Structures are given as C-alpha cells and as structure tokens.
C-alpha cells in the first residue's frame, strides 16, 4: 500500500496498525524519515515538498511492487508526506513484514533507496539563509546502486 498525504504522518499509529493481528509475520521493520533542524550546517525552519498527485502515487506504487517482487514479503507500506513539513515531523514512513527478519530489513532499505532516487517529489528547505531546493546527493545514488550488484 502506498499513500501520499499532506496531513501529518503518525509513525507510531501506522506501525501499530501494520503489526495489528499479524500472525503470519515473524519480523516487521520500519523506517521513519524526519525533517532535520539543519542540513550541512544551515538552519532549516520549514521544509516544503512538491509532488505531482496521481503520478507520484503511481510511481510509488511501481516502486512498492518492485520491492515486493524482489523480496519474500508478507506486506509492505509506504506513506510520504508532501506540502509543508515542520522540523521534527515525519516526511516518510516505510514498513515491511516478512516471515524472517532479513527480507524485512532489506525490503525497507531497498524501498527507501528507490523512493529517494526515483519517486517524483522535490524538497525545498527554508531558513534564515533563504530557500534552497535540495538536489539528490551522490550518496543517495550510491546507496541505490548497491542493489544493482547485490541480489
């Protein structure tokens, strides 16, 4: 399941729902991405994410399906926020359920790498030093490239 929303993400509630009444999984791994108060020493007051509602969810769904096909999963969820996000608030939440932990860990890691490098979302930070659009880091692409050689 994927979701794009402007409302705040509640990672605790999402994780509790994801784990509820789940008797088939032996492992659930979740990741929550938060809005930092500073990037590379520059203070951040607000974060704004641009998205393309409809298209963004479609690409997110393709990335989720690709993750399900690659790992032995029972369930997978990705929720991404867009619009204005306050410091300390969640930007993204991913959770993977599997029979054993390795697939759950790897699926959450893989899906995050995919979302960071392929999901149509564009991040802008605003702070006392002005506004700046965030470009993907070389490390983001290096992280995603790990999966091209590691099955």
């Amino acid at each position, binding site marked *: 399941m994927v979701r794009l929303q402007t409302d705040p993400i509640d990672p605790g509630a999402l994780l509790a729902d994801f784990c509820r009444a789940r008797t088939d999984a032996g492992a659930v791994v979740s990741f929550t*991405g938060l809005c930092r108060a500073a990037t590379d020493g520059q203070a951040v007051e607000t974060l704004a*994410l*641009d*998205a*393309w509602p*409809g*298209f963004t969810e*479609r690409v997110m769904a393709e990335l989720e399906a690709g993750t399900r096909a690659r790992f032995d999963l029972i369930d997978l969820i990705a929720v*991404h926020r867009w619009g204005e996000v306050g410091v300390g608030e969640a*930007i*993204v939440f991913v959770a993977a359920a599997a029979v054993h932990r390795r697939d759950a860990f790897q699926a959450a890691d893989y899906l*995050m790498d995919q*979302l*960071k*490098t*392929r*999901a*149509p*979302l*564009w*991040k*802008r930070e605003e702070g006392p030093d002005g506004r700046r*659009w*965030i*470009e*993907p880091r070389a490390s*983001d692409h290096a992280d995603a490239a790990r999966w091209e050689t590691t099955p």
Partner: protein
Amino acid sequence: MARVLLFGALADVAGWRERDIAGDSVEALRATLCADERLAERLGRPGLMTVVNQVIVRGNPPVAPDDEVAFAPPVSGG
C-alpha cells in the same frame, strides 16, 4: 498546443506551473522554455526528468497537440 507542467525548482524559477505551449517535440518545447534564461540554466542541468502523458521518456519523442508534457529536476524525496 501542448500542456506543459513544471515541478520543483523549475516551477519556482519560471514563476508558473502550467502553460499551453506550441511545439511538436519535447526538444521544441524545451527550446521555447529556454527563452527564459534562468529556466534555460535549470533545464540544462543533468538529471532533468521529462514525462509525456504521465510516462517518463528519454530522448526527443514527438509531441501531439493536447499532450501533457512535464519537466522536472532530479527528485529529492524521502
């Protein structure tokens, strides 16, 4: 006229997000957009994403009237 959409820094720099522009290919539309110098600088950067009718495209595909063509900078979600 194709419906051109801009996202992220491109929309910020251009000051608009949607506009009808004449052009029979992605490259023709991009050339028209490059009349705006600040937009030209952004459109010339590596990693530009081009989407025609909600399908990510490479190269210079033809564009029909009423097609929707989006230009976007490299993504930065997550």
